[in-house]
């Protein structure tokens, strides 16, 4: 039975003298390694140098603000429902009068926490969000934890800073 159309039967004859001496093959191999010796390394000195990982890399979460600087999240909980790792939890709160410039909708998330040890960075929260509030940013990774206290990221770490607006490539 033929399992594939891509198979190719190779007729391996007896080796010629040059092949049996191995020396030409050795010289060829040495030339290959010498070529690589002078070629540019494909690896980088990682923590010091980083590579651009593309516009849709799923790094650290960010809770976006709108153009006026009001938080977009309305604490609907769809992200938490969508989350397969159950990493997201939130507490909703009603917007008071005079807070219109802080929160876009009448309801907002008083507490919004992502457990970074649970998160698998699948991006389903991003997809579930009807308000375009949560995103996984392409330019920042979640740093290494040194203690368990650092694992849960609250709003202080997640909400977008006004002085460093996050703009994904191709959004403009």
């Amino acid at each position, binding site marked *: 039975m033929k399992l594939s159309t891509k198979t190719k039967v190779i007729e391996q004859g*007896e080796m010629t*003298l040059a092949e049996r*001496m191995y020396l030409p093959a050795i010289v060829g*191999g*040495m030339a290959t*390694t010498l070529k*690589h*010796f002078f070629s540019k*390394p494909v690896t980088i000195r990682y923590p010091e140098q980083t590579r651009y990982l593309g516009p849709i890399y799923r790094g650290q979460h960010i809770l976006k603000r709108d153009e006026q600087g009001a938080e977009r999240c309305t604490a609907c909980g769809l992200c938490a429902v969508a989350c397969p790792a159950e990493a997201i939890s939130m507490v909703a709160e009603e917007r008071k009068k005079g807070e219109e410039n802080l929160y876009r909708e009448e309801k907002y998330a008083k507490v919004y926490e992502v457990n970074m040890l649970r998160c698998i960075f699948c991006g389903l929260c991003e997809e579930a969000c009807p308000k375009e509030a949560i995103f996984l940013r392409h330019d920042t990774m979640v740093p290494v934890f040194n203690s368990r206290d650092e694992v849960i990221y609250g709003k202080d770490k997640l909400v977008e800073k006004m002085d460093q607006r996050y703009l994904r490539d191709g959004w403009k």
Partner: protein
Amino acid sequence: MELLNDVFTAKAIFVGIVFAITLGIAAYSTYFERKIAAFMQDRIGPDRAGPFGILQPLADAVKMFMKEDFIPANSNKWLFIAGPCLSMLTALMTSAVVPFGDTVTVAGVTFDLQGIDVNIGILWVFGIVSLGVYGILIGGWASNNKYSLLGAIRAASQNISYELAMGMSIIAILMLTGSLSTKTIVETQQAGHWNILQQPLGFLIFLICSFAECNRTPFDLPECETELIGGYHTEYSSMKLGFYLFAEYINMFISGAVMATLFFGGYDYPGYAFVAGQFGTTVAAFVGMGALIGKALLFVFVFMWVRWTLPRFRYDQLMGLGWTGLIPLAMFNVVVTGFGILIGQPILAGIAGVVILIAGLFLNDAIFRKKKLA
């Protein structure tokens, strides 16, 4: 000051310097081994310890010293300790007869840049290199571990097999030089009359044999991880293991120096006479020492280059190559050299020997090999 005006003191200082250079180069060979491996695999290699990772050997040494120095309960304790010591000792002793440079005059003392000029110089190298296998053998046996023992046995039989071909490739050199003294061998090669021109085949044999003698890839069967866990040093840890590995790198450097001495004119370099005329013979001799070390380092690079190119031999292939390949080839080389001396054209004979060999092999192949039916 009476003591300083002594050739003995000058020699002692020189030996100390050679010792330091050898150890330093061996230490940095470990770093360059890793760097060269990395470059050949398109990586960057160790770069964390200091700029470009140049403190890596220090870090490795600290690591080696900090590790637990374990001696297996059923091992022969004294031999277990003696093994790495012997390896290190023999590795360092070989450099005694390598002529690092010509005669120099420093502070009124005239002496040779050579540990000791004995008239059996090259035999000394052979004797010590042969002793080197005892370090491995004792270590492997004393470990009381079957894998270590297998590694040691492999090392012993490999070294003995390849020493024959190596010795015979040197006989050709001795025929040309007429002396066993390494100093004389180098002196006959001065001003560009390097032995490699007369002995291309002999050099190839010597090079292959020194790979085997140093237990380097593709002849590193004694420390074949896939078959022997670690080889003769399976049970070793801490600085005892470090000594074994270190001895390997020293051996590499020394065999590079010996190859340069025997085939590449030793401390000779283009423009030796010019430097000697311009700055004096002492300066020329010291530059020559640099040239010899440079040549040796080049060979160390070749050792590493080969290591990261070729896979290991199978053990029967290794023995087959040694006994049925290299020894007849070395004999052929001796005959050709003798013929060259007879007709007074050693360079012509050397080149003709290679041509005749290749032509003969192809002819033999064409006549006697059964053609595979198409």
